[in-house]
């Protein structure tokens, strides 16, 4: 933006400096000024065009096309079915689909179990990293390591940890348990396992975001607070948290959207890879259910309806989220 302004300031002088030397005709001059106006008015659009162009191709078009597909009974095994229209029948079926309800419950459940501890943990870690520590840069980079590790690699390790027969966790729990826990068999245990993967992956990322925000808080605030006799905890609660409010809103919304679209972790946690999310859908999330209906069952129309429903749910949840989080300490502002 600033470079753009610089151009605008410099160019008239440039023009006037050239004119006596070249002595151009009035027509040429008009042409030049027209070009100049076009540059001024048009080039900003050109600069943002790549984004909106790509968005139209990879964002808007799929969105609209998915909506169109969701009104058809399209299945690749039935030639011609993509041209039939069944209105909103897919959405109607979806409302009564127990497996979809189950997937929604799983998504919200895993979302809560993973997002809340993850953000609290990130806040705590960021607070600790904000102290003067030895090897601070190393530690700060260190928390990002799980984030740059691919989910597939994380899943590989966590599948070993949460394995029933020769798993690490069951080995630790052995003295306290009569039978090893079959982590994939129950809802609660599989949610815990999947959530732990998500927490592992994203906590460091959120911690760094919090840390960056914490460093913008003026030191004077803490100084005067400590002169007034505020404890570390009081400083954290009354200065850090309110100052982080916009950042917390951002991370809550981004994490919630991420949680609603959770796919890779539950997909990889079911080692049969049949996208069923456990033998009886114990941890099948909405996107995993979508994937199963689309790929395994070849129900393109139905899967498209799931996609759109999920999109609407996400928008609603994000709004609710925004309204709720905005209330954090807002009374004092």
């Amino acid at each position: 933006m600033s470079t753009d302004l610089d151009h605008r300031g410099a160019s008239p002088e440039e023009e006037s400096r050239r004119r006596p030397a070249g002595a151009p005709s009035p027509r040429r001059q008009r042409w030049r000024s027209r070009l100049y106006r076009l540059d001024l008015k048009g080039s900003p659009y050109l600069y943002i065009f790549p984004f909106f162009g790509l968005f139209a191709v990879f964002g808007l078009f799929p969105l609209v096309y998915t909506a169109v597909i969701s009104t058809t009974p399209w299945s690749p095994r039935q030639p011609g079915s993509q041209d039939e229209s069944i209105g909103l029948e897919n959405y109607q079926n979806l409302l009564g689909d127990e497996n979809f309800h189950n997937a929604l419950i799983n998504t919200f459940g895993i979302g809560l179990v993973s997002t809340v501890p993850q953000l609290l943990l990130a806040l705590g870690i960021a607070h600790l990293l904000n102290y003067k520590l030895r090897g601070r840069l190393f530690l700060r980079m260190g928390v990002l390591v799980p984030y740059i590790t691919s989910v597939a690699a994380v899943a590989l390790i966590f599948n070993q940890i949460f394995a029933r027969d020769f798993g690490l966790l069951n080995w630790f729990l052995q003295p306290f348990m009569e039978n090893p826990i079959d982590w994939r068999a129950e809802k609660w245990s599989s949610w815990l396992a999947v959530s732990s993967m998500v927490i592992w992956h994203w906590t460091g990322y959120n911690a760094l975001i919090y840390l960056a925000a914490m460093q913008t808080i003026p030191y004077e605030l803490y100084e005067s607070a400590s002169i007034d006799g505020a404890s570390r905890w009081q400083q954290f609660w009354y200065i850090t948290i309110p100052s982080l409010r916009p950042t917390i809103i951002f991370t809550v919304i981004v994490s919630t959207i991420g949680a609603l679209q959770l796919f890779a972790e539950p997909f990889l946690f079911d080692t049969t890879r049949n996208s069923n999310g456990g033998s009886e859908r114990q941890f099948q999330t909405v996107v995993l259910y979508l994937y199963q209906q689309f790929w395994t069952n070849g129900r393109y129309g139905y899967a498209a309806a799931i996609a759109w429903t999920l999109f609407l749910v996400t928008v609603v949840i994000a709004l609710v989220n925004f309204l709720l989080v905005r209330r954090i300490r807002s009374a004092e502002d």
Partner: protein
Amino acid sequence: MRTSRLVALTAVSALALAACGGGDEAADPNGEITLTINVFGDNFSLPDNRELYDEYERMHDNITIVENRSDIGTHHQNLQARLTAGSGTADLEVIEVGQVSGFIGQPDKFVNFNEQDVDTAQWTDSTIQRASTPDGSSLIGLPTDIGGLAICYRTDLFEAAGLPTDREAVSALWPTWEDYVATGDKFVEATPDVKWFDAAGHVFSGILGNEEETYYNAEGDLVVEDNQAVREAWDTSVQAIQNGQSAALPEFSPEWNTGFQQGQFATITCPAWMMGYIQANAADTAGKWDIATIPGGSGNWGGSYLSVPSQGANTEAAVELAKWLTAPEQNIKLFKTIGNFPSQTSTWTEPEVANYTSEFFSNAPAGKIFPASLEDAPAQIYGPQSTVIGTTFAGALNSVEQGTDPDEAWDAAMTDIKAAAGEG
């Protein structure tokens, strides 16, 4: 100056857009060709052994073969998606027998082998019909292997449980599947730490391997819910689970692979291709395995077809490779190195096959056991989603293994099957 910058920018964007739309050019038949082949298991190679591809590459200097492996579900899903999209398939694609009827409705997407100078008489009629359009005009794939059925068992674990280890005597233990489960009771009583079999889903597949009509009838209707044979196979499998015989290892998962190495189970339903899995998963158990006949005496599970999607750039070279890979000589080689049993009946009597014994399996006469199991096997009927339905049952039985009520699991499986296959 400003203008030229604008022009340059436009040119760059145009170039970037143009780069997105590059197309494939027609390949020169004698030039360097890379043929890709997508498989879902040990179809033509083992993870550490690609002898067959190497041999073909030696015979054809200009050809390089690249194999991509994925699991059976993903493999067929990707194939369908890429056929629908019109691009992205490999030059050769393997299709499992339980999925092939889902693809014969799209014959224009595959090279028709009826027009490629192939002697289809080397296979049985039912084998060819499964990969042909109803009128027989189009054949979308060439048969590779056939399953056959047997039971592979661990002689050391049998010995520890006080059971006979000789394959004749072991075969005599289970004339029927009920006897197999009854023997399992004795086994788990003697050695409670080792289970009788890997997963109930494999017992279920073994039982249904001897049925002509399972999930679909000859008209192509979904009959799974009312088919008594399916229900009986389910009940027998559930009985075995409830008697504590299952190691409850989800099929083809990493835990299942580990189960072979750790000796977590003593028997496994063993189509010929399973020999490849056992050898690849647990090379250290060589000599501890043997092969007995299947309860019921006959049956088949699995088998595949090799197809050439017509969207490929090198269909001509791909057809040549497909014909070579499915020829009797290569099928015999595959049987001896991997275990996949040749689909051509003519090969079964050849000494190379008939006299073949596997060292890994205590010199069991595999070359006699598998053809014998196929002799009386019915010509099974498959529908478009047979494999998916089989996977659904395997998952449902796995949920019973995890403690779900069998009737609830059955009902859930029926709902899932209707969702997966109900729409045709």
